[in-house]
């Protein structure tokens, strides 16, 4: 009898496990448990974990906090649109706005210093994709997500939007400068 016919034995669940299956199940189960414990392990010993810190807020409130930061710490502007480049002090709260179809403002961070980066969208979903590190975080409207991060290398990094957000999605890109 085969898999497309009823089992020949009425009491098929009494058939003992054969060795090839038993061994494989044991090995696979151990591997599954190792994979499971890797996640809590990395929370304790690893350095790359996504924060659990997020707050509900409104676009207006978030916009205001961002504007306050921009007013205090802008060092120059770039492009024809005069997008401010902000150099906030190490350890401070840094705000980044995601909106159709722009990241605002431009950030200049210091290598090896730690920042509390806030991410929130003003409208639809966006995706914060930091290149070439390839760190990817979903950006929601109404949720201020705080990620504590430490740039380790100096240079110019890219931010690409990788959550589809409409017809100009592919033009939504920006930069983060990391200075030594």
């Amino acid at each position, binding site marked *: 009898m085969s898999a*497309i016919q009823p089992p020949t*034995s009425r009491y098929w669940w009494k058939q003992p496990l054969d060795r090839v299956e038993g061994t494989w199940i044991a090995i*696979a189960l151990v*591997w599954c448990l190792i994979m499971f414990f890797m996640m809590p392990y990395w929370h304790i010993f690893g350095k790359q974990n996504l924060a659990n810190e997020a707050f509900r807020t409104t676009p207006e409130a978030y916009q205001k906090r961002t504007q306050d930061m921009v007013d205090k710490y802008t060092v120059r502007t770039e492009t024809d649109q005069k*997008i401010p480049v902000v150099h906030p002090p190490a350890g401070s709260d840094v705000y980044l706005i995601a909106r159709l179809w722009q990241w605002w403002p431009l950030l200049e961070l210091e290598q090896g210093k730690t920042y509390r980066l806030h991410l929130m969208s003003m409208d639809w979903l966006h995706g914060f994709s930091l290149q070439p590190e390839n760190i990817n975080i*979903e950006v929601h409207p109404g949720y201020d997500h705080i990620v504590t991060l430490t740039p380790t290398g100096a240079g110019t990094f890219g931010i690409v939007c*990788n959550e589809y957000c409409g017809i100009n999605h592919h*033009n939504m890109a920006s930069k983060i400068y990391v200075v030594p």
Partner: protein
Amino acid sequence: MAVNRMFRVCPTSGLKFHQPAEALMKVNAVAAVVALLVGGILAIGVTLTRWQALHLLNPEWFYLFLTAHGLNMLVYWIIFFEIAVLYFASSTLLGCRLATPRMAWAAFGLMVVGALTNNYAVFRGDSSVMFTSYAPMGAHPLFYLGLILFAVGALVACFVFFGTLVVARTEKTYVGSVPLVTFGAITAAIIAVFTIASGAIILIPTFLWSLGLINHVDSLMYRTVWWAFGHSSQQINVAAHVSIWYAIAAIVFGAKPLSEKVSRGAFFLYILFLQLASAHHLLADPGLTSNWKIFNTSYAMYLAVLASMVHGLTVPGAIEVAQRKKGFTKGLFEWLRKAPWGNPIFAGMFISLIGFGFLGGISGVMMGTEQLNLIIHNTIYVPGHFHATVVVGTTLAFMAITYFLIPVLFRRKMMFEGLAKYQVYLFGLGMSSFALFMMGAGTLGVPRRHWDMGFANALLPWEFPGTAWLMMALMGISAIVAFVGGAIYLLITVCSVFLGKRIQTPGFQHVSAHEGIAPLPASLAPEPELHPVGMGVAGFVAPGTFVLAIIFLVSFVLYYFVNWKYLSTVWPLS
């Protein structure tokens, strides 16, 4: 009203087809293939645009094509085909009449109307919101309405399936327990009910929101509930194509499951844990705790992964045992070397199994790990993964079983039989490398659902490395191979079903079940000895399969830890 009890017995396979069930399987399978045709044409536009050397479509058309491609492939092609599989696994395998054929026709009608309505909304041009249609990005109300109608139809079809199981039990058309393949189909149907319920919970409010009757849909709530629909629907596929693997092993080799208990137990683990996987999609989202993410995305400690690893062993294991019984006992792999590689039913199934396990399975578990997700979330790695699972896994398994169904269900001679031999290889290998190159590009950061990785019109463009461009070009070339394979499948299927020579059986007639179908044995025969003494190596009945499984495990472990190593080099964050 009299119940139609007319059956025919297939002279080649011995399967019993209930007349109305047969017609319903046919129409559902045909609707599926039409969706595959539409989705396939759209796929050409999408891929040849992402291969930036060609950059075929403008952004409007690209995003529209991508939306329609996702819906026609992931929803309409697969679910129509699955409904046909459900009717086959219940009515045909249990040799009983289909419950309420009229309801089944109503279900089919709703599904067709839903699919057309939804496609209409997309092709109007104002609903390019992707398969996921994340609120607060809104589509035309007909977009959601179409999906809802389709889902209601699918739900009705699931209940026709459950009703048929009841009919078979009441009318005693089988003895003992249902066949393993039917058990797998039950798993798929149970997951389908959960999936469709989740879809209703999120799509109905979103539909009302699109009409202006509700003023706010929260983006995180939408994603959380939508994925209980979006991901779970892919778990229906897993249960369905694993059932088809078992069915093909049985059809081609007469293979018997190594043990019913293990295979059924693995399906049962799917029912309990597979749906938790929808949390994979929320690993990079704010507002959910790590505890929630770890528990759910590990399917409660990877118990559903364990189930797939079990099926991955027991399907080829059953084939190996069947082959060894036929005398292919030399060494570890004679059973595999001497397998009918020229038979597209077997070859398609085996490539589906290997591709699903090695490419789809390993990449899926990697992406589904809370921290590792950070380095691939929403990159083109993600579609790379699911083309390995849904296309190499599910679609190729469906293609393989089609070659069995053309003569058996449609009673037509297969046309271009010589081409079918190559079709599964072209499609399977083309699609596998397509998926692999997408994963490569995703590792280098290339985003998914993105019209221009060159950022030609962006104010602050980002320049991807040359390797990423190369990967995308190789992806395009592999896709062309897969398109040829897909086109041959469509050519063979459509021509055979509509133009193929009818298979005539002398003296053929439908017979009423009361007179025609042979009575079942009153009781089951005594259990024959399971495996001949001395079979296999060191007490392992399927040693070759075990070696393959260990190779799989080693690749899995290496790839998993390579990714942790890579993660440890990116900017620390907490």
